[in-house]
């Protein structure tokens, strides 16, 4: 054997060993990181924790939640989009994953990430937003509200979790569907947005059901209608905008699990199966119950279809809102 040959063989062996290992290594063989792109205590974080715990029990491998926050979620989403597609870095994203790239587009800036950099695994929950007003306001029904808004365009105000945020988009979809114009007061988050309506500084708010339930019970707020395709279980008397004749006013604050695009199909299939088992887990169900967030599991084509339809609606919504200066 010549020296050359020996080197070549050694090199080949060295190359082959990790390759072979990768091919045979069962997934998962090391801890999985689940990125929640929002701070602890937010919807994404509170959903990610029980999902991670349940996945851990199914996959028999540690699943850790990491909060990578900043820029309305863009920092964490960009991080996952750019990470190695090996199934060890997952993303628990909210509806805003479809909004951020569209907003980047209308500002003409290079997008932090695009939606097609992700492979959807499963939808975990999807809560429609609910339109609430203060209890002492004159509007008893959604019709009252919309008619009044038609008479006084730009006079009725609402707070949101931030421009192009979920609560803003929900209201804009309604405005567009009903042909009304409302006045938008952005705040730094869902909490301040709620404070603004409770303090009487704005007239209306679109909010996730769990956040407003205590205030509906105490009689401070009144729910007028919901953005879902059916009524919310906890609010059986609140109609949907669809029932009221505004089918385009459909919006959900949803939470879904994603992997970076390019993750091997076998790993994705395994993750989908594991997530299906995880959402059926009793502890997981109890955790989501306490958050008053119903589980809405969808996977594969079903999730893909939901995700695409939702992204289309939101993209159209963002384009309708446009850039702020263009309105003047």
């Amino acid at each position: 054997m010549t020296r050359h040959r020996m080197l070549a063989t050694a090199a080949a062996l060295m190359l082959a060993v990790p390759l072979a290992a990768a091919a045979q290594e069962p997934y998962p063989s090391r801890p999985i990181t689940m990125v929640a792109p929002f701070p602890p205590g937010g919807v994404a974080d509170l959903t990610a924790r029980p999902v991670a715990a349940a996945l851990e029990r199914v996959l028999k491998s540690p699943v850790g939640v990491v909060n990578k926050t900043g820029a309305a979620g863009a920092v964490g989403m960009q991080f996952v989009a750019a990470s190695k597609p090996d199934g060890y870095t997952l993303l628990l994203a909210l509806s805003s994953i479809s909004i951020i790239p569209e907003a980047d587009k209308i500002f003409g800036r290079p997008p932090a990430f695009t939606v097609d950099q992700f492979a959807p695994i499963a939808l975990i929950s999807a809560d429609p937003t609910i339109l609430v007003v203060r209890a002492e306001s004159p509007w008893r029904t959604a019709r009252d509200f919309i008619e009044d808004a038609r008479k006084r365009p730009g006079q009725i105000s609402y707070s949101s979790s931030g421009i192009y945020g979920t609560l803003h988009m929900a209201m804009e979809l309604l405005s567009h569907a009903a042909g009304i114009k409302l006045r938008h007061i952005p705040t730094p988050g869902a909490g301040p947005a709620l404070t603004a309506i409770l303090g009487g500084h704005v007239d209306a708010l679109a909010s996730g059901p769990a956040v407003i339930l205590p205030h509906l019970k105490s009689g401070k707020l009144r729910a007028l209608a919901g953005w879902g395709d059916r009524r919310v279980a906890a609010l059986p008397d609140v109609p949907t905008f669809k029932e009221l004749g505004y089918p385009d006013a459909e919006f959900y604050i949803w939470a879904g699990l994603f992997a970076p695009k390019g993750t091997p199909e076998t790993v994705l299939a395994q993750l989908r199966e594991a997530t299906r088992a995880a959402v059926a887990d009793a502890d997981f169900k109890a955790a989501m119950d306490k958050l008053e967030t119903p589980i809405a599991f969808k996977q594969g084509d079903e999730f893909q279809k939901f995700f695409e339809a939702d992204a289309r609606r939101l993209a159209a919504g963002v384009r309708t809102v446009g850039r702020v200066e263009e309105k003047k």
Partner: protein
Amino acid sequence: MLETLGNLALGFSVALSPPILLYAFVGCVVGTLVGVLPGVGPLAGISLLLPATFGLDATRAIVMLAGIYYGAMYGGSTTSILMRIPGEAASVMTCIDGYAMARKGRGGAALAIAAVGSYIAGTVSVIGLMFLAPPLAAFALRFGPPEYLALLLLGLLVLAYMSSGSMLKSMAMAAFGLLLGMVGIDQMSGYFRFAYGVVELGDGLGVVPVAVGLFGVAEILATAGQAAPPAVIKPRLRELLPSRLEWRQSSAPIARGTVLGFLVGILPGSAHVISSFVSYAVEKRLSRRPEEFGHGAVAGVAGPESANNSATSGAMVPMLALGVPSGPIPAVMLAAMMVHGVSPGPLLIQQQPALFWGFIASMYVGNVVLLILNLPLVGLFVNILRVPYPFLYPAILVFSILGVYAVNGSVVDVWIMVVMGVLGWLLRKLDFETAPIVLGVVLAPMIELSLRQSLAMSDGHYGIFVQRPIAAVLLAVGLTLVLMNLYTFARRGLDWRARMAMAERGEDSS
């Protein structure tokens, strides 16, 4: 009243049960630690520990998280006083006079005053929380964007009392801080400002990296640049306790800081940070010897340290009475309650009396625990000063980097800290004060947002600021203060003949 006392008895029976007591203790210890570590503040501490509480029952979880919150306010003063490194953002003001005291060998006294002040503020403000929560929370809700803007503008006036040197220089630094506060996504339009394609800059420059850089890193660089290292301070035991004079000088500031911190704490925003700035300014304004501020004034430690503790109880008012967060920390605590199926809000007291009153009682207990924990630790912490600088400072630098990184898991934040450190060092060489920069960074985003929210509410009419009574009153107070200062300023600038003429005229008329 009698009913409240009965409820409190129920609360204490909960709070003093061994498991709850244990979790309150753990919370206090963890809080002190996150307060002591530079950079890591209560928000990071609570956020990191929130997942660990998911397995506990609701009362234990909330008691522990609250312990971390007010415990951090006790711990935050330690590194500020001993090393001029803010343990958390609300301790920036303590760096100035606390460190000056430590250099004079009164570090132990400063630590003890901070601990006792925190204890008094913590305990008294819980009484306020217990009796005044519902009406105060209703009042806090009336603070919308216009009221908030008026209050923040009043906060900017604080600047006038912050500097011990040139007014012009401190104004320049505040303006620079306000400019730094402009970095990030424009909340009203979604534009990225001064982010240069760095997504992490979308949320702006964090207060923590800026404060740790400007104070801590700059201090380390400045010390390293000296020809001979500063003498190591060897504290003696009998110097640990404050003298009678120091107690006397701190009693009124503690009382004022307590009331002020509680009131500021109720309002939305980074209340505990602002409360310490305001308290410092108030103390300097009321002091008979304002020239001592910046050179080891006891009131400059006692006031702000009491205020930031009292503000933690204030921040719980809207959270407990209404179920709305007054800032990021109460928001995380609200989430913790929701995780346990407790719906926070106006019905909490009726639905979960054991939790509510147990929580209140645990805050009394927690403050006692913290005092017992912190006073003996003074002796221990002060000994850090015995460590020679070549060993101490690299270690602090490592902890600062770790702490700043841990807040968001962001390397960008570490770079911000480094850049701010170099900048702070340079500014110190040029005799500029850096505290106004931190004030600017804290206030700028809030001032801008509340101004633009107000104008969005009024469709662009500035009348909204005078039509709303609270806003109008606050603005009038601010205007009066400015005019009063301008008057003294103008008088001082007058020629001696003109001044004499004025005095004569005054005599004539009398």
